[in-house]
C-alpha cells in the first residue's frame, strides 16, 4: 500500500509554473530519490507535500488521508517530517534543546522528551555535541541536527532536502550509514539529492523532474540508462 500519494500536483507562482502535473507514490519502507537539474521543482514538491504551499491543482494523500491544504504542523502531527536544504537550526538553543523541542510533539512530559532526544542524538552521533549552541556547529553537524530534529517527531515518512550537500567524504559516509539505519527502523524516506553516487547507491526508486515535470521514474539502474535523464543533465546532443 502506498504511504504517500501525490496526484497530478501543480504549483504556480504568478505566471511561473514551478511544478506541473506531477504524480508519484511512495511505498512503505522504501527510499525514494527525487532528482533533477537546478530549478526543476524538487524543493517545491517538498514544500507542497509538507504543507508550506497548498498545491495550485491536484491533491496529496498521506496514509489514505487527504493532506493537501493542511498546515505544516498538522501534517507533521500525522507523521510526516522534513529537513531544510538551507538548514534552519534553532540558533540560540543547544543541540539537545533543539531536539527536545521537537520531541515534545509526542512526549507527554519533560522526562519522556529527554529520553526521545537522547536516543535520537545517539542515533545520529550528535550526543557528544549536545551542549553546543547550535549556531556554532559546523555545517556537516548542522545538517545532521536537521535530521535528528525531524526524527525526534517520530515520523513515518521523512523528507530529506539535500542533507548531503557540502559534506566532506567522511561525513558523507557517516550520513549514508545514518540514512540506512533510519530505513532499518522502518521509516520511509524521500530524499532530494544532487550527489549522484549517493542517490544511486541508497535509493530503491528514483523520480526525475525537469522544468517542473516528471520525465522518468524507475530503479537507479533504469534511470542511469534513460536517455531523457541523460539529456536533462548533460544537454541535448549537438546536431551537426
Amino acid at each position, binding site marked *: 500500500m502506498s504511504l504517500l500519494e501525490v496526484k497530478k500536483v501543480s504549483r504556480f507562482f504568478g505566471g511561473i509554473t514551478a511544478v506541473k502535473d506531477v504524480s508519484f507514490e511512495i511505498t512503505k519502507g522504501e527510499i525514494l530519490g527525487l532528482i533533477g537539474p537546478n530549478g526543476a521543482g524538487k524543493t517545491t514538491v517538498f514544500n507542497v507535500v*509538507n504543507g*508550506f504551499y497548498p498545491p495550485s491543482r491536484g491533491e496529496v494523500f498521506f496514509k489514505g488521508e487527504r493532506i493537501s491544504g493542511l*498546515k*505544516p*504542523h*498538522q501534517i*507533521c*502531527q500525522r507523521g510526516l*517530517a*522534513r529537513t*531544510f536544504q538551507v538548514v*534552519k*537550526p*534553532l*540558533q*540560540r*538553543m543547544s543541540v539537545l*534543546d533543539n531536539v*527536545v*523541542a*521537537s520531541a*515534545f*510533539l509526542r*512526549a507527554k512530559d*519533560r522526562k519522556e*522528551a529527554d529520553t526521545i532526544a537522547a536516543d535520537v542524538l545517539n542515533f545520529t552521533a550528535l550526543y557528544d555535541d549536545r551542549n553546543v549552541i547550535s549556531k556554532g556547529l559546523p555545517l556537516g553537524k548542522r545538517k545532521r541536527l536537521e535530521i535528528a*530534529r*525531524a526524527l525526534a*517527531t517520530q515520523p513515518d515518512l521523512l523528507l530529506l532536502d539535500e542533507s548531503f550537500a557540502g559534506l566532506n567524504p567522511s561525513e558523507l559516509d557517516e550520513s549514508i550509514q545514518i540514512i540506512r539505519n533510519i530505513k532499518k527502523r522502518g521509516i520511509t524516506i524521500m530524499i532530494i539529492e544532487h550527489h549522484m553516487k549517493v542517490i544511486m547507491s541508497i535509493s530503491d526508486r528514483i523520480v526525475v523532474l525537469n522544468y517542473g515535470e516528471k520525465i522518468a521514474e524507475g530503479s537507479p539502474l533504469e534511470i542511469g540508462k534513460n536517455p531523457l535523464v541523460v539529456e536533462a543533465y548533460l544537454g541535448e546532443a549537438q546536431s551537426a
Partner: protein
Amino acid sequence: MKRYITYIVLGLLALLPLLGLNSYLMHILILVIMWSVIGMAWNLLSGYCGQVSFGHAAFFGVGAYTAGMLYSKLGISGWWGFPASVFVVAVFALGIGYICLRLRGPYFALATLSMGVIFRIVAENLVGVTGGDLGIMIRERTWIDKTWYFYIILIVAAATYYLVRKVIESKLGYYFVAIREDQDAAESLGINTTKYKTIALILSAVITGFAGVFYTNYMGYIDPKVVFALHDISIITIMVVMVGGVATYWGPVVGAIIMVLLAEAIRSIPKLGTAHHTLFGVLLIVIIIFLPNGIVGDFSKLKRLFGMRRPAP
C-alpha cells in the same frame, strides 16, 4: 545557595517595610516591583517567544480601566479588577492577536505600536464609557499607608516570577523559544505557531493587565494619556527588559530597578529633568551596542570590563 536565591530575595523584600522606610522610598520600591511585573510579562511574549510588542500600554491600560470602571460604573471596589481583568484583558488580547499575530518581525511590532495608540484615542473619545480625558478618580483610597500596597504588588510579582519560570521550563517554553528562533522550522516540527503565539500573548497581556489594575488602586487616578501612554508605558516596558536582559529570569527585575531609579534621578536634575526621554534613548543605544543581552545576559562581559573576573581554573 543559588537555588535559594529567589526565596532569600523574596524574604528580604517582605521584611523591608518593617524598617520603617519613609513614604517616598516605599513609593519607589512599589514602582520598581510593578515595573518588574510588566517587564516579566513583556519578556514572556517578546523575549522568549520573539514577538516584539510596542503596545503593551494597551494591556496595561485595559487592566487599569477595568479596575477604574468597576469603581466608577458599578460602585464596587477597584480591587475586583484583579479577577475581572483576567477575562477582559484576555478578550482584548485575543482580538489584538487575531489581527497582529499574522504579521512577523517588524510588522508585528508596528501593528502593536498602532494598537496602543488606537486604544488611547478610543479611551479619550468614548467619554460616556471611560470618562474621556477627565479620567477616573478613586475617591476612597483603601489604605493611607503604603505597606499593604507594597505587599500586594510583591505577591503579584512573586506569582508572576513563579509562573514565568514554570512556563519557560515546560513544553510551552521550548515551543516559545523555537518560534522565536525560526518560525518556519517550528511549524515544520509540528508546532502550531499561531496557537502558541496566542498563548504567549494572552499570558503576557493578562499579567500586564494585573499591573494596570494595581496601578489604578494604588495611584487612585487614571486617565488615557497616562495609562495608554506610548512613551511612558510601552517604550519603558521595552527599556526595562532591554537594559536588564532579554529572555532572562532576573533581567526585568534588574532593569526595573535601574530604570525607576534613573527616571527619579534624572527628573530631579534642574532643567535637564524634562529631557529624561532623550537620555533614555541614549542609554538604549549604548545598551544595544555594548550589552546586547542586557545587564543580566552579559554579566560575564561586565565583570571582565571591571576586572572582576578571576582567571579560569
